[in-house]
Each structure stands twice: as C-alpha cells, then as structure tokens.
C-alpha cells in the first residue's frame, strides 16, 4: 500500500481521540454555561417559578405581596399574648394558651435554637457562637448578650419572644425567619438553658451529682487544659483555614 494511506489511517485515528478527550474535559470541569437542553420542548415553560424575575411588575418580582391594607383570612394576629408576647400593658410572664410547654416543645426549641441562635449566642447561650468568635478575630465585634446573666434571666418570656420578633440593639428581627410557634419553642429552650447553667448541684440527679463530685477541679484535671500547641485563629499563618480542607 502506498505510504499516504498509512499516514491517513494514523491521522484519522489521532483525530478520533479528540472528541472523547473533549467530552472528558467537559465532564470533569465546571462551566459558566447553563446545561444543554437536547430536547428543549417544555423544559422552560411560559410561566414563572418561585422568586423568578417578572418584568411585568414595577418591582420586577414574579411573587407578589398582599395588596396594601388587606388582611388574609386567619392572619389578623389579634392575639397580643401569642403574637406579641404582651398581656394588657406588660410583657407576658407565662406562655400563651396556644403553646403547650412539654418535652416536645423544649426539643423543638433546642433544634431551632441550634439553627438560628447558636451562630451568635453559642450552644450554651454564653454569647460565644462562631459568628462572635469570627467577628472578634476580625476586630469587628459587637456586644452579644450572655443569656445566662441575671439580666437575661429576669426577662419575662413575653419579652424574650418580642426580642426574637423585633430584634433589640444590634440583634436583628427574626420574625421573617422563625414562625411564631417556633419562637415560643425557642423561648422554652432559652429558659431550659438558663436553668441548666445555674442549677444547684443538689438538684441534679444523684448519679450526675456523684460524677461531678468525683471530678477534680478544672486546673487539676490535665484533660481539661487546652493543648498548648493550638494557636488562636488570628495567630495562625495567613491563608490557612482552620478545620477546612
């Protein structure tokens, strides 16, 4: 066979390697281009999905707010105690009748507290959450109330509910993020936290009391001492993310 045929066969085979390589590259890299629609029919329909933009309205949003001055059925929120934490002209000192305080409510509160409150207030409420620590390391910090201080303990439940609803000082309002019933559940958990952090040892179950009494004071227990080779975040070399990968 003439030489050019061999050359052609080799060339064709070399060229045939290119498409699989391109496919592999596209499969293993990220793209700014949206997905390819092989059969585009009905994939994008002429309707609006949640939170899409709609040029028809002045604010550009497809989702609409209720018309001004209207109240939806069941959304009058006239119950001051349940929706605002107030009885006559003072903060409510008891939970409203719609809320049954039981273990389920406290568990729900612990769960919701974990989502919405721990970033600043910390797991046990001492105001040492990750956002607080981060803001300190950035030197852009602000005061976060320790929920276990006497001041916070003295707040009536209605006041705690109102703080969550409307915010206070530097704390933003959470009414759009936490539904009313969950705000009351968090109030219950905050009360449980406050109780747990100030409880008398004599009130604990006997086995826990025993374990506590058998324990050495903090500075005598070597396991409790922070390892000395761990540096605070702001002293670590730049560019490293603690715990990150």
């Amino acid at each position, binding site marked *: *066979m003439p030489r050019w*045929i061999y050359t052609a*066969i080799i060339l064709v085979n070399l060229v045939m390697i290119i498409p699989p390589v391109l496919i592999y590259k596209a*499969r293993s890299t990220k793209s700014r281009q949206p997905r390819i629609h*092989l059969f585009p029919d009905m994939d994008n329909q002429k309707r609006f999905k949640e939170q899409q933009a709609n040029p028809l309205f002045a*604010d550009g949003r497809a989702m609409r707010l209720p018309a001004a001055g209207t109240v939806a059925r069941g959304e009058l929120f006239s119950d001051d105690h349940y929706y605002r934490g107030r009885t006559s002209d003072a903060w409510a000192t008891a939970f409203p009748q719609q809320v049954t305080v039981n273990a389920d409510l406290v568990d729900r509160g612990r769960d919701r507290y974990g989502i*919405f409150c721990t970033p600043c207030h910390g797991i046990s409420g001492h105001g040492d959450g990750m956002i607080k620590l981060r803001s300190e390391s*950035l030197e852009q910090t602000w005061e976060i109330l320790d929920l276990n201080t006497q001041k916070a303990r003295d707040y009536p439940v209605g006041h705690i509910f109102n703080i969550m609803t409307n915010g206070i000082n530097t704390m933003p309002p959470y009414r759009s993020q936490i539904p009313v019933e969950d705000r009351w559940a968090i109030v219950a958990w905050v009360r449980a936290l406050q109780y747990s952090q100030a409880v008398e040892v004599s009130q604990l179950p006997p086995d826990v009391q025993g374990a506590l009494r058998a324990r050495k004071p903090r500075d005598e227990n070597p396991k409790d001492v922070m390892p000395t080779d761990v540096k605070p975040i702001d002293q670590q070399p730049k560019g490293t993310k603690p715990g990150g990968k």
Partner: protein
Amino acid sequence: MTDEPKLESDAGNSEGIGVREPIFPPWTDHLVKLLGLGGAFSGAYVAILAIFGLSPYMIAIGYMPKQVVSYDHSLHAGELGIDCRYCHTTVEYAAFAAIPPTQTCMNCHDKIFKTSPKLAPVRESYASGEAVEWTKVHDLPGYVYFNHSAHVTRGVSCVSCHGRVDRMEEVFQQEPLSMGWCLDCHRAPAKNLRPVRISEVDALVAQGLLEAPPPSKSGIPANRRLLDDARVTNLGWGQDLSKSDREKIGQVLLAERGLVDGGGNPTVRFDTLTSCSTCHR
C-alpha cells in the same frame, strides 16, 4: 486483475508495453478490508461518543454560574457552621428552598464587613428594596414537580442532591438531576435515608449501626453528638459509613417510621414513589 487480457485500445500507447495499468492495484484488496473494519469500528465509536457525550452526567453536571455576589458557602456553612436553614428557611415547609432576602445577609453584614466592596450589591439592595439577582443553579424542567419539604423532613439530606455545598466556594451542580437519577433513589430510597429525630438515632445506636456518643469527661451524658446525628442539614454525616451500612440504616429507619413491618415488607404502597403523577402532575 493482473492477468487481464490485452485490449485493442492499449496497443498504441507511448511506452509500447501494451499492458494496461490495473484500475484497482492489488493493495486495494487490503484497503477494502481496512475500510470495512474502520466502518464497523466507527459505528461503535459514534455510539460510545453519543452515550457518554449526551448523558446527563455530561451535559448537566458542573454548571457553576457567576453570581453577582461571591457568596462563599464553604465559609458560611462550612467553617462558621451556619445551618442551611438559617437562610433557606422555607425548605422544611414549602416545595422550594427560598433564596434568602437581603435582610438575612444584613443580620450580620450590617456589622461585619460593612464597607466590603464584595458586599456592595447587597447594601444597594438593602437600601433600594430591589432584589439581588442571584442565578439559579439547580433548575429542574418546568414539567417536574419537586418538593423540598417532602424530602428534607423525611431524612433525605440536602447533600443527596446538592453535594457538599459546605465545601463549595462557588455553588455548582454536582448531580445530573436527570429522571433516571431521581428514579434510582425513588425505586430504593433506603440508601439515602438519614435519622431526623433523636429517637431514630437512639434506635440506630441500639442496633449497633451508629456508634454511641463517647462518654463525656464530666460523666454527664453527652447528647450533642446525638443532636448532630439527627440534623438533616449536617452534610458530612455518614461519610464514614459504607454503602451497605447506609442501606441497613435506611431499612431500620423505614421500620421505625412504620413504612415496613418487622419482616421488611412494605406497609405502604412504595410504587407511588415511581408513579408518573408523583413528579409530573
């Protein structure tokens, strides 16, 4: 072809040999075989290219649009450990997992990085009331009904469809979100199920499928580990478990929820999970 008879018309050619050059030289015999081989191979080649090149794993995965604000999930959800639901608040109640309003950003960023240029679009949005125009990454076709709350509250974690968002600096599509991929789980959901209640974690610990939390130094029972095991937004959960263990855990959870009886027989109609009208309604 070599012993072709001499033809009249060839008699007077210039070299006077009188033998006509064959139209198809002998090597064309081999070429025909080669072409046949190549033809057969190219069929398989094109088929393989089409299967791999047009698969949803190829055309859908890896979409990472440029967002107007370079929000870093690996910092906020990963390093700082903010729960997914702090921002995506509707995920347990509604079909869609809401992109948070600008107010949620400003909960912290009216205090932290108040002047950062990266956050300028957020501040402008906060001042004007105009929405920040985020680009949707995981967009299903218009004829698919997907309900976030139905999945999340039953222990199908965010990570099953969205991947380790807590490690993504920019969010990209990690899974194909194709019909075959959805059905893979809808036909056998156990492998993607996770505990969502402390009681379910307790049941798994009792069966030896999850490790019991280590005793705390003070001797007071530690339940933080149990809480984290029951948190559906804990994206790293189960990374250390084998596939067969995940399957067993899923089966225990199905039994705990009364969806299968003691013998592993369904007590509800699982075929509704694969019925057309479940997702195309």
